[in-house]
């Protein structure tokens, strides 16, 4: 599933950004010293044969027939670490080293979705305190 062509560089291997944290491929990237674009295939649609039990339960609880907004969640990479972008805090949340990464992007994306839900719904999410401080109603 990895293998989408980007203008800046190409994802050739599922571990590319784990093994090469800088991931500078094209001449332009080498010149400016930073990676251009996303570190995952933003347009990869989920393979529903790989749903985890937790995600099935979540879909049932919400009354959805599919992953809904989670279709846009993917396992990404930040400074050589597996990480997931959390839109609610506009930042990356890293995956602990103790969690083993599967060998394909689809299964990694499912793990990313599960971890993100558990984090967003937990009391340790920054939105909990933001809400306490600033919520108007």
């Amino acid at each position, binding site marked *: 599933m990895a293998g989408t062509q980007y203008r800046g560089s190409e994802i050739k291997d599922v571990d590319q950004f784990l093994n090469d944290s800088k991931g500078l491929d094209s001449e332009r990237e080498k010149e400016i010293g930073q990676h251009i674009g996303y570190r995952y295939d933003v*347009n990869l649609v989920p393979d529903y044969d790989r749903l985890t039990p*937790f995600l099935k339960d979540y879909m049932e609880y919400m009354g959805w027939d599919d992953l809904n907004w989670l279709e846009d969640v993917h396992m990404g990479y930040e400074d050589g670490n597996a990480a997931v972008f959390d839109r609610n805090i506009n930042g990356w949340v890293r995956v602990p080293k103790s969690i083993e990464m599967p060998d394909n992007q689809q299964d990694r994306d499912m793990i990313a979705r599960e971890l993100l839900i558990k984090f967003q*719904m937990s009391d340790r999410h920054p939105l909990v305190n933001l809400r306490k401080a600033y919520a108007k109603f």
Partner: protein
Amino acid sequence: MAGVTDEQLQGMSQEERAKALGMTTEQLTGRSLFIEFDPEAEERFGYPWAPDVDYNKRIEVDTDELSTTEVNEKLRALMAEGYGSIVVKNPRGKHALGVGILNRLNLVFEGSLGYFAVGLIDGPNVRINGRVGWSCGENMMSGTVVIEKNAGSTFGAAIRGGDLVCKGSVGSRTGIDMKGGTIIVGGDTGALSGFMMQRGRMIVCGDAGKNLGDSMYDGTIYIGGEIRSLGVDAVEVELTELDRKWLTRKLSQYDLLPSQGVDHFTKIVAGKQLWNYDNLEPTEKKLIL
């Protein structure tokens, strides 16, 4: 943060609350936050503050005599009472109904809505048995919205997640600035649809107007009918097997799968020739130095 109770927080000003919770207001630069997932995190499906609603607890509300604010406050009060299925009667085209709902809910509007219907929602499943005005589902985060008839312009403006479905036709600038989610149109869409799209997916079963996908940065557009013209940097690419599988499943979900299947759909993505921020970067760095 530790040692401060909710009761104490309620007695404070906003500035005092922010300080007590360890927040700062000064300008931050560089990476200041490191967060890691907790592998032992509890399994919970709703936000900590979301009301615990029951889909089997149903109520009908006649909103004929209520203002927009009164309707939205009524919805909040009913959710707080645990109602998980709410039917709104006589909405009479009021604007901004059903906005800002951040939990699961089955919400049905028996009639048409005005501008900015069900914007800023995060979770509910909404059905509108009528038409909607401009910017329906604006800034939607998650959930499903199904409109049985037609919708106005800027349908799904800046949507970030969820499924926004119009079974009829929609106006121009559909999905303008969309940053995620799926927009599905059973009929046709107007000019400049997908303008400045950044990610997400748009499916149009009918025709698309002029300048489809103009200045799109990323994301995918699938068109079942004719495309009047493509916008700047929008290019056609081959439909993959995963695309076909996904389109079939998604359209079947909303009873919109064409009788001839999905093979005739055209897939449009960004050519990425407008990705010029990498060229600006060195200049910006010099200016800062």
